[in-house]
């Protein structure tokens, strides 16, 4: 029964994400065609018209990615509500959404690459893998943010939604000021050969970025589960 429920969660994600993507594609294609036609009417230049039309796939690739990211920010609470209405546990919902997230990201990544093929040279498998992991990490991060926001009522959503970016900016400003204030010490550190050698070893290590990525990914995935398991019906 759990498996059946998980499939239900997954098909629901595909269904609604598919709808969102179709609407986006409709709008973008419609908008670009209308703008190109208007350009053609005013310029009477068919070549410019065709060039504008050729740009549609790359615009689509960008917007489809945005839809994917936005979908996983916006929908956790909506999905939780219908799932709990139908006796689906949080655990099953998390599993279903996680699997759907992975599959949807994979399909959209392949679609992106196909759409972008006309405008960019073929990429090496390693670059493709890195790009896929970047997209997947972005989507999982959005899922964690979405799940986190699902726990907040409207007032707290505003407070956290504005407060967190402001705090981040303040943190960045403090860091920059700190670095500037420590200018002489940092210069001395950068000129220290031993330090530079150690840093070179660290940053030239091909495994390090993957380890860092894995840690970040695990934290984000853990956060999605943590927030998911605390989701409950809100009173707002």
């Amino acid at each position, binding site marked *: 029964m759990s498996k059946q*429920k998980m499939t239900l969660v997954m098909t629901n994600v595909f269904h609604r994400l598919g709808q969102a993507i179709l609407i986006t594609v409709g709008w973008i294609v419609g908008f670009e065609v209308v703008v190109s036609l208007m350009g053609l009417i005013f310029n009477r230049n068919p070549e410019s018209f065709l060039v504008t039309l050729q740009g549609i796939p790359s615009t689509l690739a960008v917007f489809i990615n945005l839809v994917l990211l936005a979908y996983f920010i916006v929908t956790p609470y909506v999905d939780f509500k219908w799932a709990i209405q139908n*006796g689906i546990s949080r655990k099953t919902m998390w599993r279903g959404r996680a699997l759907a997230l992975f599959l949807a990201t994979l399909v959209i990544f392949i679609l992106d690459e196909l759409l972008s093929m006309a405008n960019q040279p073929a990429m090496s498998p390693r670059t493709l893998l890195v790009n896929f992991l970047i997209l997947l990490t972005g989507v999982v991060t959005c899922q964690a943010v979405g799940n986190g926001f699902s726990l907040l009522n409207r007032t707290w959503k505003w407070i956290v939604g504005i407060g967190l970016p402001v705090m981040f900016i303040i943190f960045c400003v403090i860091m920059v000021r700190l670095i500037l204030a420590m200018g002489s010490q940092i210069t001395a550190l950068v000129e220290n050969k031993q330090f530079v050698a150690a840093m070179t070893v660290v940053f030239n290590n091909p495994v390090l970025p993957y380890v860092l990525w894995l840690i970040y990914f695990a934290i984000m995935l853990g956060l999605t589960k943590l927030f998911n*398991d605390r989701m409950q019906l809100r*009173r707002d």
Partner: protein
Amino acid sequence: MEQLTISHVSKKYGRQVILEDLNCQLAPGKIYGLLGRNGAGKSTLLNIITGRIFPTNGTVALDKLGTNDQDRVLGQFYLMSESNLYPKRTTIQRMFDLADGSYGHFDYQNANRLLKAFGIDAKIQLSKLSTGLQTAAKLVVALNVNANYVFLDEPTLGLDANHRELFYKELVKSYQEKPRTFVLSTHLIDEIQQLVEHVLILADHHLIEDADVETLLDRAYTVTGPANLVDQYVAGLRVLSADQLGTVKTAYVFDQLDDQRVIPDQVKVGHYDLQKLFIGLTNGGSENE
């Protein structure tokens, strides 16, 4: 079917106490009435049972299995409530499909028959229906879903008299065909009195009554007669309320009358209904305990 046990359940929102140390059991295959005044915590209790919200303290278990995040347990509960938890453009047909996908063996045939009786088109979106028809559509799902415990929170909200009658008839029919536990949380006590076997009454964050309707009403007496004789007769008994018209007084007693208590000639003893009892119990106590 397993028994549902609610142990020491409390719920607080900030400093506001909704439920406090609630204990009760729901047996399989029985129709319950969950009664309480506005804000008594009925919906909160049903939300806790079905895992929609977490209790601050306490547990809900079905045959020793905690309900929290167990598909096997949650799959036996269905809560029909006023709040619409489906995405905006969900059609009635989609609601049927979701219930079938999650609980299995949804009775499509009976559901479509009921939809017809309520005059609802399965292809219409739930949010586009009037309040009464939204309730009716949700009831159709609740009566045909394959769950052993069906909780109906305000099942008659917005329903006209004809549709209410249809619902009560269909509820009994559904129960007879497939006995399972129904919990009706409603303010229309008069209408459900004949339907429910057992009532749970919530007041002041606590469960103040948990008994079979028959047992409760067996202790609900009206004592009518001259005021002085009535007062004399009910002395020492739990009197929930009293009405007086001139010298004639009616006392609403909720107690066991013993045989040794001699009824004066001018005093009449009768019974009152569940609604009157509910009002007496939840209006702030007794006069003569």
